[in-house]
């Protein structure tokens, strides 16, 4: 988005992340707002904010794989789980620090993601989507059965991070750690897609045969995008585990994978800002729905069973309606709004 008279004369200007001074100011305000947030809200609302930040990491990761490289993955939930269990095992059972556990979780999940990404050389589209669905079920099964590591159906209790004498036991202090991770990883992703690697991803997505003819190694980049995406999932899962202080297999079922897929589709495929919008939307929506259902069932107790049953249904219905009426996602709507204000009051 540029102003009139904003002519770019160098490549450096063309690829800047923050294009204009106005955007820099806006991002500054956003940063201040995010830093001040824990002092403005508390309790459950702070917990929701934490969940959103973690979901942003996972959604950005999935968008790199699905939105930018064009490989549908139905296994993001399980990869979050791999990260959460890795960090939980390292911190709770081996006594290592949080600062070792989270990066290790990212790396281990990246390895796992690449193992399950190996079929991606031969499989395309739907066949690959179902192969990732298989990874979801296989990993979920491993979570429950590998009791010596995962604690089986009991799960593992996980500590919050500590630096020296200071413990990040409160949600407020832990929020800042998560915020730092989210900002760094989102900026990294924004940068990544401007590099040679990012453009290779998009070339593979848009036309893989042409990409291969241009000398892009399909195998390398497909596997790499699985690795990077799973790294993000692993970090998000680990942060989530430490946030909940507890890791168990139900937190990483197929439903979670579907919610993450919904995030990037509703937010906008192939758009980093879209992943953020999608994460905010998909985390807030169920909370709003449960507020509504609690109010209704408090007023009319006889409807409780009916209303709780419909909660999931309305969630599904909103996804369906969204896809029918806004198929390009929130990121597209965001562009239209920006264009509207740029051109206002002229409609051309």
């Amino acid at each position, binding site marked *: 988005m540029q102003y009139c008279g904003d002519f770019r004369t160098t490549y450096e200007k063309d690829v800047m992340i923050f294009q204009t001074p106005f955007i820099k100011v806006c991002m500054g305000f956003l940063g201040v707002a995010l830093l001040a947030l824990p002092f403005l809200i508390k309790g459950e609302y702070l917990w929701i904010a934490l969940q959103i930040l973690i979901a942003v990491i996972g959604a950005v990761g999935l968008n790199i794989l*699905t939105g930018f490289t064009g490989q*549908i993955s139905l296994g993001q939930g399980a990869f979050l789980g791999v990260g959460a269990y890795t960090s939980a095992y390292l911190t709770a059972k081996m006594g290592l620090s949080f600062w070792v556990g989270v990066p290790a979780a990212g790396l281990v999940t990246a390895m796992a993601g690449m193992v399950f990404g190996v*079929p991606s050389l*031969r*499989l*395309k*589209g*739907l*066949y690959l*989507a*179902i*192969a990732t*669905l*298989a*990874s979801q*079920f*296989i990993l979920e*099964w491993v979570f*429950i*059965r590998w009791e010596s590591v995962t604690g089986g159906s009991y799960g593992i209790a996980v500590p919050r991070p500590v630096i020296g004498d200071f413990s990040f036991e409160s949600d407020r202090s832990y929020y800042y750690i998560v915020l730092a991770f989210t900002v760094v990883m989102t900026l990294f992703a924004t940068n990544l897609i401007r590099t040679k690697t990012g453009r290779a991803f998009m070339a593979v997505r848009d036309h893989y*045969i*042409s990409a291969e*003819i241009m000398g892009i190694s399909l195998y390398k980049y497909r596997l790499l995008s699985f690795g990077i995406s799973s790294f993000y999932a692993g970090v998000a899962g680990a942060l989530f585990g430490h946030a909940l202080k507890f890791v168990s297999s139900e937190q990483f079922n*197929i439903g979670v994978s*579907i919610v993450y*897929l*919904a995030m990037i*589709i509703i937010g906008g*495929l192939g758009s980093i800002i879209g992943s953020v919008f999608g994460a905010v939307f998909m985390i807030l929506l169920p909370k709003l729905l449960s507020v509504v259902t609690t109010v209704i069932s408090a007023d009319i107790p006889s409807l409780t*069973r*009916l209303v709780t*049953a*419909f*909660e*999931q*249904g*309305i*969630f*599904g*219905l*909103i*996804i*369906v309606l969204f*896809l*029918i009426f806004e*198929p390009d996602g929130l990121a597209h709507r965001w562009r239209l709004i920006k264009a509207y204000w740029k051109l206002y009051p002229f409609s051309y």
Partner: protein
Amino acid sequence: MTTQYLLQLVISGLVIGSIYAAVALGFTIIYKATRVVNFAQGEFLMVGAYVCYAFLVQMHVPFWAALLLTILFALAMAVILERLVLRPMIGEPIISIIMVTIGLSLVLRSLVTAIWGNDILVYEPKLFPQETVSIGGIPVSQEFIWCFVLSMVLLAVFSVFFKFSKAGVAMRATAFNQQTAQSMGISVKSIFALSWIISAIVSGIGGVLIGNINGINSSLYHFGLKVFPATILGGLDSILGAALGGLIIGLLENLSDGLCKAYLDLSGVKEVAPYVILVVILMIKPYGLFGTKEIERV
């Protein structure tokens, strides 16, 4: 471990597999004609089972009439869903279509739980006689035989339908090339609707059969998730593949589960075995056993 135990595993595997095959057929029909991956296939099965329960047990309609009414209900549901939800999605990327059917599955699931609750319901009276008959010395429940025979008849009827009937040929033409089909006077829109109708009916009948054996509750939709390995194994767009894939998955699932329980003291292999098999097969044959290999040129 006796031969008898092994044979029983094989028989119950084949019976469950025949229902997988029926549902996989429904999945394949939709995919073949419209290129839509229907993640709500398991919910179609569940809705069929519950609607038949409502007619049969709650309204005391005789079985043949209940089955007919269930089929009519499935038909109506398919037409409405196709018209309202799937048609606006034509031309959207495959991932959006996957998501729309997932959303649809959530809606159907919550409707079913809202109406019938979460308890296990049982078909009363049972649809088929309960006495066991002996096949080569092994006692087999008669309902197993009925179930298997009915699924196989269903599969046979539809393969004949695709090969020889006018509508079947039109569906194959549409699957091959939509524009050409349209220029030959085939209404692609009604073919799309027809494929959803057939799919819903076949899955609905599958739901009635499985509901009769195991009882029905809201976790019946898990069946839909088992159908993916079955269809992929056979090849997404092959009807013969769907039938064989269903049988193979049912058989392998039951055998691996039974053998692991007996020898390795490892339970719950059932849930994961089809997916392991799926990954192994896909590594060897990326388009399944009978799937069309896409030839790509630049």
